[in-house]
């Protein structure tokens, strides 16, 4: 069982915790491949998916994971904008908990919200993304995907490409990847990096890393989320940071392309690459990440509630 009951960030996960989660994911991946994709492990447990920010993939992934374990799952969605000052998120949660819930999965647009909640309530919480802070289950499923592909972590070269400053995925993954002994390079333009990145391993062009990387991890470029740190244009992005077919062909044998989804076709990855077939097409493992995501989340739910 896990030492910690709540999953708030990747930093607080020990190597033993991580190993436990990944090895359990293996057995739950097997459940998902059965004809009858259900085990009675969490029968009688109630899980709430509390999403204050829109999400399809993560919310569905948790829902499928919970249902395959026979837990009862309730979706509660509320758009971020309706939770205003005065409407206390703590009160919302306490209302939920009065109905005797065993675990809460939360996504919210404000960084640090999980720590706030963890202070006020005493049931386990899983962070499904808090603002620009952390998205630990994404990082864990990415880690699991990498292990399935390479069978190891030590020494793998990972390039994380795109909007670093606004990305909770980047924050969680850098931490976890480095913890597992991978060499992480961030590829990002100055306005999407912190002011001082002298202590980080940073490059500014995808061409600087494309040939040597084992893993090209591409972040979603959220033009709509950038308020003041404007990146000039999509054309500029394509020139310096996008993965196009020319760059795809430079990638070394055995290397892979990952993305947390959903992909902005034509921005961070071109249509040509997305639809590539053959050897190079096989590098894109975005759909496998999604499949493994269910297994990893099943493992987490089991380890917390089982």
């Amino acid at each position, binding site marked *: 069982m896990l030492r910690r009951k709540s999953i708030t960030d990747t930093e607080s996960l020990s190597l033993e915790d991580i190993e436990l989660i990944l090895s359990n994911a293996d057995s739950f991946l097997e459940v998902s491949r059965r004809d009858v994709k259900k085990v009675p492990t969490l029968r009688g447990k109630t899980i709430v998916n509390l999403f204050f920010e829109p999400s399809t993939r993560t919310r569905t992934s948790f829902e499928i994971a919970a249902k395959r374990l026979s837990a009862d799952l309730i979706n509660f969605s509320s758009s971020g904008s309706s939770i205003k000052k005065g409407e206390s998120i703590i009160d919302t949660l306490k209302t939920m908990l009065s109905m005797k819930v065993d675990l809460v999965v939360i996504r919210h647009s404000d960084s640090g919200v999980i720590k706030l909640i963890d202070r006020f309530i005493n049931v386990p919480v899983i962070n499904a993304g808090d603002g620009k802070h952390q998205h630990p289950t994404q990082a864990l499923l990415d880690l699991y995907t990498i292990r399935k592909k390479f069978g190891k972590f030590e020494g793998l070269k990972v390039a994380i490409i795109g909007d670093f400053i606004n990305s909770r995925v980047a924050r969680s993954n850098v931490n976890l990847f480095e913890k597992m002994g991978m060499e992480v390079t961030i590829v990002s333009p100055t306005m999407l990096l912190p002011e*001082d990145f002298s*202590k980080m391993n940073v490059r500014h062009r995808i061409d600087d890393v494309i040939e040597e990387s084992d893993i090209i991890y591409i972040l979603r470029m959220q033009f709509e989320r950038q308020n003041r740190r404007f990146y000039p244009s999509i054309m500029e992005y394509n020139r310096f940071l996008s993965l196009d077919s020319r760059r795809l062909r430079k990638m070394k044998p055995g290397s892979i392309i990952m993305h947390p989804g959903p992909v902005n076709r034509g921005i961070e990855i071109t249509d040509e690459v997305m639809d590539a077939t053959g050897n190079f097409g096989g590098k894109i493992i975005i759909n496998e990440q999604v499949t493994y995501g269910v297994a990893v989340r099943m493992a987490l739910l089991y380890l917390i509630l089982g």
Partner: protein
Amino acid sequence: MKGNKKKNILIKSGRVIDPQHGKEFVSDIYIKDGIISKVGENISIKEDDDIVKINAENCIVSPGFVDMHVHLRDPGFEDEETIETGALAAVKGGITTVACMPNTRPVIDSQSLVKYVLEKSLESACTVLPVAAMTAGLEGKHITEMGLLAETGAIGFSDDGNSVNDSRLMYEIMRYSTQFDLLLILHEEDSLMSGEGLIHEGYFSTILGLEGISSLSDDLMIARDITLARRSGARIHITHLSTKGGVEMVRKAKEEGVRITCDITPHHLFFNDSSLTSFNTNFKVKPPIRSEEDRLALIEGIKEGVIDAIASDHAPHLDTEKNTTFKLASFGTISLETLFGASFSKLYIEEKISLPKLISLITISPARILGIDAGKIEVGKVANITVIDTEKEEEIKRENIVSKSKNSVFIGQKLKGKVICTISKGKLVYRSE
């Protein structure tokens, strides 16, 4: 408190700090009818019913503290604090004079509101001096009746919480202030640069995914205002200085003869931005708690004499404004009650700064900036005196907070140096159990 006769007070065997002359000596102090009547060794007074004896052995006896930057939220936000409750918190912290900022509702930008504060001050445990707005409604558009407001009793002028973004207007405010030799207290923030920022922009804002407030936001505005003050000859005071760049600019401006002074807060002295990893919203303050490099520059600034005062920037907020996400929480921490303990723990215990020097930063030095006769112990003057047990260490607990709001960044901290009694306006207004 009005009307009742003042009890005579004898403070025995305290280590008296004289920040004006940088001296300390063991002495008794006798206060008769609210006036300091004798300072000397072995004062013996015929026992009468009215006398209050304070044994100050192993304690320091300081002039009552002067805090030139507080928010008392009165009028308009009396659920957070009132002049009365704020004054009670002040005297618990050994503070006998406060200058309160004008961001109330309505804003202190008219003579009637200045009078309101002064009247409330008469009934309060400590002296409360109103700082009036520089621009009407703090909107940064129209200059206030600075001449009239000063005549009515405004001790200084500030748009605290904002900077006046219009440089021409700021220049005219400075020029006009010279006509009356007024003090301008400046909150330095380039609001386009700070934007939606929540904490200091640096390593911790990056890992926590919280919007950053670059130190450039302060530095750009400080540079502008020094430039304007140099040209206009205005007397400016940079409040809650937080950046290394700011300390350097103030040092240089002073060398050039610009009429500039500055203060820092105890929380900028005490913490660095690594404290934000807890996401504790009490640490959400403006200017933000900055990096260790900035903090060390502030301490260096004190040692070199670049920094003139420590001011609390006491900013009360309700639990509902703080028990929320970091983004939604209000900016500010209360800090009247911890002003001395925090400063003493950092500057005296850790940094070995002398007591008279430390005390001057919270007494005579801010008094001089404000142009008031306070911050010293003098025979013939109304007694404003604070007695502190410097050996006593105390953990700051929410339940012991006197202020109406409880949003203290120091909760859970152990601070050395406890105020054991405060005499304000000649009366014993606070005594710890």
